[in-house]
């Protein structure tokens, strides 16, 4: 409405978003680690979904307040009060400047969004000609494998022919498939029944985060080459 009040120009917002089910489950904390990390990566790029996410968290708060109270042990308050003295107070001024002790040091790669920089990332490794990958360590018992791929311009992204759910978020560059063009921050969640074939765009490398459930099917030479890295 008033041009002078517009915020300064910012990078274009993502156009492919997680659906309402994924977002609400992320806010509720019920997503498995693999998809949660892909959604968190998208959120770093997407103010629209961050907005939605806060609202779903507010639903959590409202549900918490209307939760039927369950009595704690008689001495619970007393015991907790006794522990307050030893509890170190977090100072708002220090928050954000000092990484919490229980979080690994931030990955130095500046192209990575905060959600990814907080993760434990393996070293870059050769996957196939034109493709390198870094493993992202997530809880293996939940059945997801998470990889960060750097795919050279024009190459196919080695994740077609999968079985089970696949979640992808572009971190840098872009790819295209039958669903359209996916640039920075764009997210896709596809089901095993979809045999799409994403191609990195011809004008630059595509850096993308992929979480897959289950095994990659041996589908091509590329698929076989990816296998040892993904650890199947």
């Amino acid at each position, binding site marked *: 409405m008033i041009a002078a009040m517009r915020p300064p120009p910012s990078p274009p917002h993502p156009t492919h978003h997680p659906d309402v089910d994924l977002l609400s489950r992320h806010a509720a904390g019920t997503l498995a680690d693999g998809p949660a990390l892909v959604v968190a990566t998208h959120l770093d790029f997407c103010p629209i979904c961050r907005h939605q996410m806060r609202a779903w968290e507010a639903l959590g708060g409202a549900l918490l307040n209307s939760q039927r109270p369950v009595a704690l042990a008689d001495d619970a308050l007393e015991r907790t009060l006794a522990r307050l003295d030893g509890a170190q107070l977090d100072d708002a001024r220090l928050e954000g400047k000092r990484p919490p002790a229980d979080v690994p040091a931030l990955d130095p790669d500046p192209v990575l969004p905060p959600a990814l920089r907080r993760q434990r990332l393996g070293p870059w490794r050769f996957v196939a000609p034109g493709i390198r990958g870094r493993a992202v360590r997530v*809880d293996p018992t939940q059945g997801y494998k998470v990889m960060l791929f750097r795919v050279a311009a024009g190459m196919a992204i080695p994740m077609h022919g999968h079985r089970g759910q696949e979640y992808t978020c572009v971190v840098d560059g872009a790819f295209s498939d039958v669903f359209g063009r996916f640039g920075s921050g764009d997210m896709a969640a596809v089901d095993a029944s979809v045999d799409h074939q994403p191609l990195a765009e011809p004008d630059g490398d595509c850096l993308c985060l992929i979480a897959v459930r289950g095994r990659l099917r041996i589908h091509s030479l590329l698929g076989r080459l990816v296998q040892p890295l993904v650890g199947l």
Partner: protein
Amino acid sequence: MSGGGDGILPEGRATAGATAGTVVLEDVHARHLRAIAAQGDRAAFSALFRHYAPRIKSYLLTTGLPPMEAEELAQEVMLTVWRKAAIFDPSRARAATWIFTIARNLRIDAARRSRAADAAVAQESLTPAEPEPADDLLFAAEAADRLRATLDTLPPDQLAVVRLSFFEDAPHPDIARRLGIPLGTVKSRLRLAMARLRGVIDPGGAER
């Protein structure tokens, strides 16, 4: 503004009354948090504890935690509330929302620790990030008030289904079994309730 969200909340006495009471309660909780941050006010902490700890324990039980662990973790959540009180910003989130996110994150961490084969996995932090200053934070706070009011108007049977579905991500057949109602009833109650809640959370959702 499209104005599309205005017709979604029913205009009833019950809604107006519940909203007023809710806002007052939120103000009291926010004041307690400020008193903890400013002068380590134990009376304020005790008041928050009496309200939230039994609800947090109840929430943790809903997510499937055994009673002993729910008890311990509820105390842990309250301890974190004490430690982080200075970070609470009432313009970003309501007290209940903020405390819910702490409980949620500690629950995720605890579940991961109990599953972890090695200590390294347990150290990963995959908890959703804090809001950013550039975001429209007032929206979330206001949505919280409207959601509260909407929850107050939901029939108890719909609320029970929403609770299990959101907090626990329970499959519909599970919800049906636990509430002792037919599967079709679960689906229809959830559809009705979520349509109402979605209208509050994302009034422009249909246009996206």
